[in-house]
């Protein structure tokens, strides 16, 4: 029984020693940690909202703000083009989509 315990301990020490010998790129990890810190805390509320609510809003926005809906007005067409690009970039970001909705309602005069 004691022999078994001793064997297990030796095995564990060997595994830990083996893990330690593998060098990790610490500089990269530090860089990533720094970047993650600089970006601040995660907005979990937005993440959770985006997981369930962004799809509906995205579908509405991409239809209402499509540049092809403003073929005669060059100015509105350019604005719609810009908003449409940003909508596509923020497909999974509910907060950004809400801001874009307000912007579209104000600048393009659409009701969403």
């Amino acid at each position, binding site marked *: 029984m004691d022999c078994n315990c001793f064997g297990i301990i030796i095995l564990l020490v060997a595994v830990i020693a083996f*893990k330690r010998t593998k060098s*990790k*790129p610490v500089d*990269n*990890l530090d860089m*990533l*940690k720094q*970047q*993650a810190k600089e*970006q*601040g*805390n*995660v*907005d*979990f*509320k*937005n*993440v*959770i*909202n*985006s*997981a*369930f*609510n*962004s*799809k509906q809003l995205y579908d509405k926005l991409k239809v209402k703000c499509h540049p092809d809906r403003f073929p005669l007005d060059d100015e509105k067409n350019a604005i719609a083009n810009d908003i449409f690009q940003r909508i596509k970039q923020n*497909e*999974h*970001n509910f907060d950004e989509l809400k801001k874009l909705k307000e912007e579209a309602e104000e600048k393009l005069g659409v009701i969403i």
Partner: protein
Amino acid sequence: MPLANLWNRILSWFRERNDRLQLVNDFNMAARQAWVAGYVPSCLKASISKGYSEYRHSFSRWMASGFRICVLSGAQLSKQDIKYIGEAILSNDTLVRQLVVLGWDTLEIHCDVGNYGCRWALKDHLRLGS
């Protein structure tokens, strides 16, 4: 010197462990509040799982490298819905970076009902240099 190094490693291990638990707790708290307030139709519950060995990266933890999210919906969600939840989580660069630096390598999402789910390798969604 090696003793100090070992001590630093022990401290670092505990600090990281605390950070991991903090992140899971923050996620669960936000999910709970959103569900109670009626913003979302289902409650999400995050936990730490074993992870998937093929998704390992340089910063992966030896064990417990999976970030598992259980969708408490009471019914089996379609694969499309599960994928959409996963994409919403993976599109948040800050969250993905936090997960990677804290030793997670796999994101798993499944429902409380049914027997299938989806998993993603976090390293594939780490947009470095952006």
